[in-house]
């Protein structure tokens, strides 16, 4: 059975303007440079077996992006050689090396081995936490709008899919929404603005930060959005696919292990 390496990484700064596909290509190149023995798909045009989690909208930052890399089992290597080869003695070294091979703004935060039969990131993640910086209205007005939204039984938004318009209720996907005080000097712009913390569910359908801000009013402008966590909810418990302090824990994410067993 092949080994799977789960990586948590961030995407901050100018690089937030690259797309999800762009980031996938950056990882492909970085993995090739690292020399990690990445397993490849079968067939005419074999691709590296790399799976990304939920797409991050272009323009958003994130502290919690994930990818799973399936490693080719080492061919008749001694058993003490880690599955990623002997060039990286441990996961900390590997994480640092990968950050080095990635462009500025993309850095590895944590990595661990997970069982290869763990379900995919895309399927597991149930909600995401966001920090949003908005402009256009006063703080008091923002509080009022947030309350209105939370009190509403339904929040109808107009969507378009395949050229057809229909109405959708956004309210069930807004798990929580509140203002918060950011730490000094962390704002995107100098002008007065409000900061929101939101938890948005991925199902029945995902809500993008921009959609959320649009329902707060046409005068509210999203200046910066940053995903801070992705959550997996299972039997009433909530945990991350890999938490930020999992760097170098070779045994892997206990929750993922638990779920797979």
């Amino acid at each position, binding site marked *: 059975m092949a080994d799977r390496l789960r990586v948590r990484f961030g995407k901050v700064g*100018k*690089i937030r*303007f*690259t797309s999800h596909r762009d980031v996938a290509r950056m990882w492909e*190149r970085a993995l090739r*440079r690292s020399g990690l023995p990445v397993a490849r798909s079968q067939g*005419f045009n074999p691709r590296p077996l790399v799976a990304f989690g939920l797409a991050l909208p272009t*323009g958003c930052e994130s502290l919690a992006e994930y990818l799973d890399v399936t490693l080719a089992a080492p061919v008749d290597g001694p058993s003490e050689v880690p599955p990623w080869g002997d060039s990286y003695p441990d996961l900390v070294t590997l994480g640092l090396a990968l950050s080095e091979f990635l462009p500025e703004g993309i850095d590895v935060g944590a990595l661990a081995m997970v069982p290869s039969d763990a379900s995919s990131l895309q399927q597991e993640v149930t909600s995401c936490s966001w920090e949003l910086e908005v402009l256009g209205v006063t703080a008091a007005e923002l509080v009022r709008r947030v309350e209105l939204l939370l009190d509403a039984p339904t929040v109808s938004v107009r969507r378009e899919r395949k050229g057809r318009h229909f109405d959708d209720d956004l309210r069930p996907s807004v798990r929580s929404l509140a203002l918060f005080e950011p730490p000094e000097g962390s704002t995107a712009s100098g002008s007065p603005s409000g900061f929101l913390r939101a938890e948005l569910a991925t199902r029945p359908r995902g809500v993008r930060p921009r959609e959320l801000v649009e329902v707060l009013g046409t005068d509210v402008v*999203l200046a910066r959005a940053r995903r801070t966590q992705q959550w997996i909810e299972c039997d009433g418990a909530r945990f991350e696919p890999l938490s930020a302090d999992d760097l170098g824990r070779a045994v892997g994410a206990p929750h993922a292990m638990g779920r797979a067993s």
Partner: protein
Amino acid sequence: MVSLWPSIEPLLDGVAKPARYIGGEQGATVPVHGGGQVAWLLIYPDTYEIGLPNQGLQILYELLNERPDALAERTYAPWIDMESAMRAAGVPLFSVENHLAAGDFDVMAFNLSAELVYTNVLNLIDLAGVPVRGAGRTSAHPVVLAGGHCTFNPEPLADFVDAFVLGDGEEVVGEINDVLAGWLATEPELRDRAALLEGLASVEGVYVPSLYRVDFEGQVLTGITPRTPAAPPQVVKRTISDLAEWPYPKNQLVPLTEVVHDRLNVEVFRGCTRGCRFCQAGMITRPVRERPAAQVRSMIRAGLERTGYDEVALTSLSTADFSSIEDTVRAVVGGECGDQQVSVSLPSLRVDAFTVATATQIAHARRTGLTFAPEGGTWRMRRVINKLITEEDLYSAVDAAFSNGWRRVKLYFLIGLPTERDEDVLGIAELARRCVEIGRRHHRGPTVVASVGGFVPKPHTPFQWFGQDTAAELRRKVNLLKDACRPVRGLSLRWHDPEATAVEGLASRGDRRMGAVIERVWRAGGTFQEWSECFDLSKWEAALEAEGLSLESVTYRDREPDEVLAWDHLSAGLHRDFLWSDWQDALAAVAVEDCRWTPCYDCGACTDAGIEHVVASNVPPAGGSQGTGQDLATGDRVPVRFVTAAGAR
């Protein structure tokens, strides 16, 4: 100098593909300004995706940043949505490294690889806040330079660009920097722009158009002559004699977002002497200078390791002619250039089975399509243009491709060539039809795409005297082909817009009067004219009319034998006599062989410049009439063994 990033960032949420504007490529240099260096802004006047991979620009970028007395940043044409956001917010054209205003640089240097970008050049100068006409600039403005293949007829842009550079840029860029550094060393109040321009004109290969007088008698151009002794009567292109001395780019840029040619590119040779008469690149880049095979291999190895790419393209005008092509391909595929699986692409395939064998060796993965360029539909036509591919070459190449697993073959052709008759045009459909038949012997549903471009005669080629086909005539020929191709299942026809071809002709061979036309089109909002969704013939027609010019006078008419051409004062190394006799040979359908392996024709490229071909092998490559044989006598004999019963005549 302040970074404009804080004002740029808010614009990026509202535009398409914002990663075009952020820089951050692996291999980029983020220079520190203020050390007295000459600050260059290198500009590709098309979108980031098209411009970023340009090797010429990347080479100069590295060479300048290696110098202690220079620094270089880059920029590209912002797409229409970004441009309007920038203009609305008062943000000028900016560099992608430090996000500095273009006007803060000492030099704005354009790469001119295609004529239809000319209106973009004006737009970018304007977006930089610099007067578009050179005459309106002062010592406080950046100097506007341009290099690249289009500078071999720079007259249409002469009013807007202060100095043009002809030929290879590797050496001359340093000499230009010396002149600029000297000028910038004087006190700002004492700087005299006229003196700077004269200084630039003294550099070999640099053309300063404002130092020349352009004379007309009525509508006829009668001469372009220096106004001052500082300007040479004829400017001769620069040629580097040994590519081995210039292993650049050493740090090819790896973009953060998708671009064209997104792979490692290694130039294996420069120049081409196949002698195709329609091909300006082949004429103006003579002679052939190969890179040593060992250097090619080490550049591939270092490049793959540094970038993480899994594809390398061996670039040149005709890569199958590289003496060491087989060894090089074997080395890459065999893992000598790194231990990951790597695919090789040869962007310019020669048309013969031997070449397909090489291609088969290298394309483990993507066997989706192969492209060949027979260019002409009949052997007579191909002798006129000196593209010496026999039908046998083509059919054996196509057969080899289909039998090796390819399912799609693309064929490039030109229409509107000199002496062309309808049978030559219909020959395209016939060749393509037979290729489909060959494909059917190997696959159920083979596809052949015949891609047809309208021919634009280019300066410094034997066809420079030829009157371009009118848009209407090209359209008629396209219709002939449409009718002939329609009944053939598996054959699809693509063609270029004949109207865009007409405008390309204006820019290719226009004289200085075209400047006013280009300016009018730009002022009417005509940017990105090489993009079909933006191209607008009516803007060009209106501008021509307003300037008292016409497509007929600029590009549709045949030039007289003794007529002064707008680029006669510039030399690509080729004797006008040579071009004229090659033109006469073309009209008589007389072909000439490649001078790498046959006696010299004394075209001038080597003989006058005191350089010669640098090739590793003095025997021509194996295979096909493009190799050893070049059996010019038997080319039109159709090889029977490739024709099925249904296709036999």
